[in-house]
């Protein structure tokens, strides 16, 4: 589906004093899409959202909404409602008054205000709490009030800054589906900032991954999980083991890299293979990395490792290991697959993987 552009960031920079929070940012948000923004803490996600909402002015560059530059429009003259992590509901107003707030500020008459607010209260299934105090609602109910409050003006775009991070696991999953459905039904563009990979990957059409004010990768969840474009992305997703080193040999179908732990090889279709002597990084998913007690015969990519810990996650466990050079390696397996292995701390094992499972990313 080819969609129109709703928002575009053109060379946007934001500095606080001498500190540059967002560096030369260029990207577009399509009408009706669900865009998630991810990245480690302090990478500029909130700052990006706030510039879009008009709560910060860009230091350089232009932000356009439906083609018009909006850099210097104060936030109260834009229609870019935001849902805050803390929700920021007005504690001195009841649920209905909260939802009516934006309409009141727009000078909508009393009866009309009430009608439109009730429509949204109804839609969010919180009509029965209309006259309650905010303090008397549960976390999920407040969440819905916050959504209704922002949506009541029927904006083209909704900005969400980690809206679910305060909820417990079960409620989080429920609210995710509420949000996803809402977005589909209304067709409103969602820009959704989150820390949680699970949230971003399960809800968004496209995901932006940021690091230190720079966009590292934009793409669908599948693209990003399957082919992280940079070492940062691979690292950030946390599901790959990562090795850097000097390229020894490289063809369009295979490459050999000299790492501190020895040479590693990778096979596959390489569009633009690096040249020998350059630095390259190989990633391999932790689920594709295997362990054995003895050195597997006749295999490449075998590293002697020592167990440093183990973590249980439901049906699977992640084994943390370390090579002689201190390189950390993780292996994720089901309990059954690990059952035969001695996993006492300090135990020496061999980690290995098939050259076809490796993946080449840019830089060191």
């Amino acid at each position, binding site marked *: 589906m080819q969609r129109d552009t709703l928002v575009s960031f053109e060379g946007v920079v934001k500095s606080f004093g001498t500190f540059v929070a967002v560096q030369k940012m260029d990207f577009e948000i399509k009408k009706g899409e669900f865009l998630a923004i991810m990245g480690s803490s302090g990478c500029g996600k909130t700052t990006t959202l706030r510039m879009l*909402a*008009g*709560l910060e002015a860009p230091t350089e560059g232009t932000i356009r909404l439906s083609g018009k530059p909006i850099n210097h429009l*104060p*936030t*109260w003259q834009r229609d*870019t*409602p*935001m849902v*805050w*992590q*803390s*929700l*920021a509901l*007005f*504690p*001195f*107003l009841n649920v209905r008054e909260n939802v009516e*707030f*934006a309409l*009141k*500020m*727009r000078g909508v008459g009393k009866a009309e205000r009430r009608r439109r607010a009730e429509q949204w209260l109804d839609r969010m299934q919180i009509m029965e709490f209309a006259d309650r*105090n*905010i*303090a008397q609602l549960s*976390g999920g109910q*407040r969440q819905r009030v916050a959504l209704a*409050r*922002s949506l009541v*003006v029927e904006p083209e775009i909704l900005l969400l800054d980690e809206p679910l*991070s*305060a909820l417990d696991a079960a409620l989080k999953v429920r609210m995710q589906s509420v949000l996803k459905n809402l977005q589909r039904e209304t067709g409103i563009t969602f820009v959704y900032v989150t820390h949680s990979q699970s949230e971003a990957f399960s809800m968004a059409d496209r995901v932006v991954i940021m690091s230190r004010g720079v966009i590292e990768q934009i793409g669908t969840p599948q693209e990003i999980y399957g082919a992280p474009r940079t070492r940062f992305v691979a690292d950030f997703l946390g599901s790959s083991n990562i090795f850097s080193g000097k390229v020894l040999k490289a063809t369009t179908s295979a490459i050999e890299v000299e790492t501190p732990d020895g040479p590693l090889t990778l096979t596959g279709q390489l569009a633009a293979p690096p040249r020998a002597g350059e630095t390259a990084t190989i990633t391999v998913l932790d689920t594709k990395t295997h362990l054995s007690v003895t050195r597997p015969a006749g295999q490449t990519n075998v590293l002697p490792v020592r167990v440093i810990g183990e973590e249980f996650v439901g049906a699977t466990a992640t084994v943390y290991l370390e090579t002689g050079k201190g390189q950390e390696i993780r292996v994720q397996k089901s309990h059954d697959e690990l059952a035969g292995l001695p996993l006492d701390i300090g135990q020496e094992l061999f980690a290995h993987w098939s050259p076809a499972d490796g993946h080449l990313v840019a830089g060191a």
Partner: protein
Amino acid sequence: MSAESINRSRAVDWSLRVYLVLAYLFIFAPIAASFVFSFNSDRFPSIPLGQFSLEWYKAVATDPLVWEGMGNTLVIGLVVGCVSTLLGFGAAYTDYRYNFFGKQIYMALALLPPTIPVIIMGLAMLAFLSRVNLSGQALSVVIAHVVICAPFAMAIIRLRLSQMDPALEPAAWNLGASEWATMRHVIVPFTKPAIFGALFITMAVSFDEFAIAWFVSGLNETLPVKVLGFLQGQVSPRINAIGTFVFVISMTLVILAQILLSGRVTPVTDDKE
């Protein structure tokens, strides 16, 4: 901690409680005595007590000067309360919202005055105000009292603002409210209890202040200055009568403030993470 905890000693706990009671006795002895002696017929209080008498209250009630002082005190207190609260609100909001060069100096100006000994403040105020022809009027007392009361108002309101979710104000802007509309529809409603609290507390402070008022009040003496006069000029249980009376009014204001500040506490945000 439960009372049956094994790591506590009853003896220590009880001696501490007894000590505590003694401390309260020390603190309340003069207050209680002044109350008792205000109903005592003897002009020069001593024990055993004389008869119960309302003579000093009558003396106070029939003294037009006391009534006049009372009127001055009330009017001055009211004006001081309003002005201090307004100024304090502005300063608290400034501190909450803005960061600027020299803010520390601004905050020092906003908070320092109550730490200057009153006798020095009074002296400096009188010397200065008389230069600019502002001394000896009710206005002088208002000016001086606002200087020391505004910091209290500022502190109380700032405390309330710090309980406010910092996202609340931008959230309102984001929903289409201009800065002024946000002030009216969000900041003021949120801080309302603190605003009234500050109003009553500053009124109570002004109500009780005598040292600076003595210097600058001229002919428009407030009640506490009259008390100082009674103490300096003619020892009389009228002091006790007025003291008890002022105490009742001040306490009423304080309790009102207390109710406003703590009564309608609504959790500001749900607990994060």
